[in-house]
């Protein structure tokens, strides 16, 4: 009996030793060709629920941005205020508590009214770091949530001043989402604005433009990418290429005075 058991164990070990390296090699080659499947097991088990959780994490970041108080649509035109990149920190007025409709003797109805935090406040300066964990989790839970990726990149590079970390993070995000024009454009912007590396910026912005052309988009998105790309060309002294792009932008927005002036300025050079 013992000899039989040992024999079974031996055969099992030999079979495992033969199969495991092959499976491992197959996994490695598969994941290197399909990086979008390189997700932890737990996350894979969540399935499509990952996308919901990831968006909830962004909502939580927005709540943190408001000091834990729920987001107020009417103050941000229905969008999340953490998405408003250039949010003026002081462009909101404090909430004045309206007079309660509940009788002062209706105590159980009054308590939640008094305990609820209603002040409308935005995190600013150094406090903004508090939303970073939620943005990080949003993109970790669903690496294909492009909005989470670009938002995280923006907050790390622009708001936290960690440009290298932001670039490394966005490059990783781009590997997971090679078809995303948004991530390419964000990388290009960071290279342009923070690193002043116009060659790299041009590379990513040009790629973003090509990807954008392949997907349904609006003219504002096209203007965003092209303006940055034209600026890159200008910085590199490639006036003709920049001019072409500005002309293209003017076709999209015929009444845009700044573009017209830019073209005039470049043609006079």
């Amino acid at each position: 009996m013992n000899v039989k058991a040992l024999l079974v164990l031996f055969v099992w070990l030999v079979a495992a030793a033969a199969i495991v390296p092959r499976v491992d090699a197959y996994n490695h080659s598969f994941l290197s060709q399909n990086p979008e499947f390189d997700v932890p097991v737990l996350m894979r088990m969540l399935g499509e629920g990952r996308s919901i959780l990831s968006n909830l994490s962004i909502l939580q970041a927005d709540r943190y941005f408001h000091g834990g108080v729920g987001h107020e649509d009417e103050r941000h035109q229905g969008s999340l205020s953490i998405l408003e990149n250039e949010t003026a920190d002081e462009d909101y007025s404090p909430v004045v508590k309206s007079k309660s409709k509940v009788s002062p003797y209706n105590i159980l109805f009054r308590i939640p009214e008094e305990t609820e935090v209603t002040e409308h406040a935005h995190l600013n300066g150094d406090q903004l770091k508090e939303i970073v964990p939620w943005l990080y989790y949003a993109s970790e839970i669903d690496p294909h949530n492009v909005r989470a990726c670009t938002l995280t990149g923006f907050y790390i590079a622009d708001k936290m001043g960690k440009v290298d970390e932001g670039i490394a993070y966005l490059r990783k995000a781009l590997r997971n989402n090679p078809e995303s024009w948004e991530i390419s454009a964000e990388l290009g912007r960071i290279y342009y604005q923070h690193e002043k590396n116009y060659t790299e910026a041009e590379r990513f912005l040009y790629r973003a433009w090509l990807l954008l052309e392949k997907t349904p988009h609006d003219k504002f998105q096209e203007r965003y990418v092209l303006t940055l790309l034209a600026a890159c060309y200008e910085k590199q002294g490639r006036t003709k290429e920049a001019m072409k792009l500005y002309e293209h932008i003017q076709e999209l927005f015929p009444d845009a005075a700044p573009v017209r002036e830019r073209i005039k300025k470049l043609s006079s050079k």
Partner: protein
Amino acid sequence: MKAIWAIASVMMRELVRKKDFYILLIFLLALLGFLSSQSFFNVEGISRYIKDFGYSLVTLFSFIIAVTFTAKQMPGELESKTIYPLLAKPVSRHTIILGKFLGGVVISSISFVLFYGIFCIFQWIGGTGNSFMLLGQGFLFGILFLCLVCAIAMFLSNIMTLGANITLSVLLYIMISGFADSVRDSVLFSKGITSVLGGIFYYLIPHFEFYDLRIRITHSWDPLPGWIVVAVALYTCIYCFVLIYFAGLIFRRKRL
């Protein structure tokens, strides 16, 4: 009073003997340690999400201790038949219920004190402590919350089985914490008989959401005004008194 304390002290020995508390304590330490050691893109000094998770964990773990220890008291005594020697002593059934309730409160409060202490130490190490007033209010509300939970579990343990009691207590906690605000709003915006019935329902349900200071502690908002603290404490006392009184009545009429 002596009899109540004697019954409660038996329960306290249970806390030391059983492993539930130690497991939750280790789990809390491990989770807080893990959260504190997390690094996000080399950004230093991030603290609010640790406070958020920490406070939630402290409340949840204390709630688990309160419900499980209190809920199993009566069924445990009945099953092992240890209730008979207890009833043979010169103590009323109300005293037994009160003793068991007090034991549950003391056990969960001891756990809460330790959990809350660890939470405060982690805050202090991270250099992101709250005002003493707010932390004090958080502590007081935690104890009051546990009193309410123990009273509910003790009341339910007289009318249902252990499993049903724990399930209903947890469900009540989840539902009321999540939906009490919606109930309140719907009552305020309704009229006529709906408003009256809704109002009665709102007054009857245990308001767990009153004790939740998570947002205030996490985001370092101002402490609550004094009258709110007094009102919540009074509310807890009245609710617990009513529940324990009825639990005693039910137990007195029970045929054993």
